[in-house]
């Protein structure tokens, strides 16, 4: 399966990818994007099975990406991985179509719990 990791922080993308591997999802193909705009293009081009996106990014935020994907009728599963995670943000993400919102710092177990139903 194809997973797209979106974050303006290269460090954070490395951490997400490392956690994916440790959670047992290392066999999946992982690609990266550094902001929502780049991610939207990658979604259109690569058709990933899952997108893991940060919230606050330049060019296009995670929530804007969710809205753009919805507006364009693109069917893709998107999970938000963010340092913020207030109840308001969780509701916003849910309303915009996110399948989950995972707050940082996260653990391998929390990753596995959320991604197992999606990736199998």
């Amino acid at each position, binding site marked *: 399966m194809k997973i797209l990791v979106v974050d*303006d*922080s*290269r*460090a*954070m993308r*490395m*951490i997400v990818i*490392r956690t994916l591997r440790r959670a047992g999802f290392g066999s999946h193909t992982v690609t990266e994007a550094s902001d929502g705009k780049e991610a939207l293009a990658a979604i259109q081009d690569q058709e990933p099975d899952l997108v893991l996106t940060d919230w*606050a990014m*330049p060019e296009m935020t995670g929530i804007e990406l969710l809205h753009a994907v919805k507006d364009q009728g693109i069917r893709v599963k998107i999970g938000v991985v*963010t*340092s*913020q*995670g*207030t*109840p308001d943000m969780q509701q916003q993400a849910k309303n915009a179509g996110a399948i989950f919102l995972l*707050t*940082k*710092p996260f*653990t391998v177990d929390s990753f596995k719990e959320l991604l197992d139903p999606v990736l199998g």
Partner: protein
Amino acid sequence: MSAKLSASQWLDAAVDATRETAIASLGSAEVEVSGTHREVPVGLMGAYVPLMADDQSLHIGLVSSDEGCATMARALLGMEPDDEEEELREDDMVDAVAEVVNILAGVMMRRMADRVSSFDLGLPIFVSGKVSCPGPHDVRVAVLDIDGVVAQVVMMQGGAKLQGGV
């Protein structure tokens, strides 16, 4: 709207958030507060993030020495602390420390969610230089020992002007 929180209360929240972040993200066993003061640290480097909470404007920062920042970055990135073969690039160090502050601020926001009705978090920046606060401000700093790394959590309440850069 919630009652305005004092800089001291914000610093307490920042220290708790730093402890949680260090343990969860840096693999730290222990975080101890060795002291507090009210001067913006000089001669150190680190990241700051702006935060708007209700009618308050804040900057939260985590600063340390060059070596301290490198140690924290290596820990976040899962690199061995003294592995000379795995070089830590400067841009990765900057990115990693900024991400630590980003995570710390997010933890702080969640901890304060029942006391603050609205929050807005900006994007972090990394600063190696003098940080000044023009105009009325309140600066509170906690000196921490994060598994042997001496770092300082900085809380600046009010406007702040950043000078210098990486």
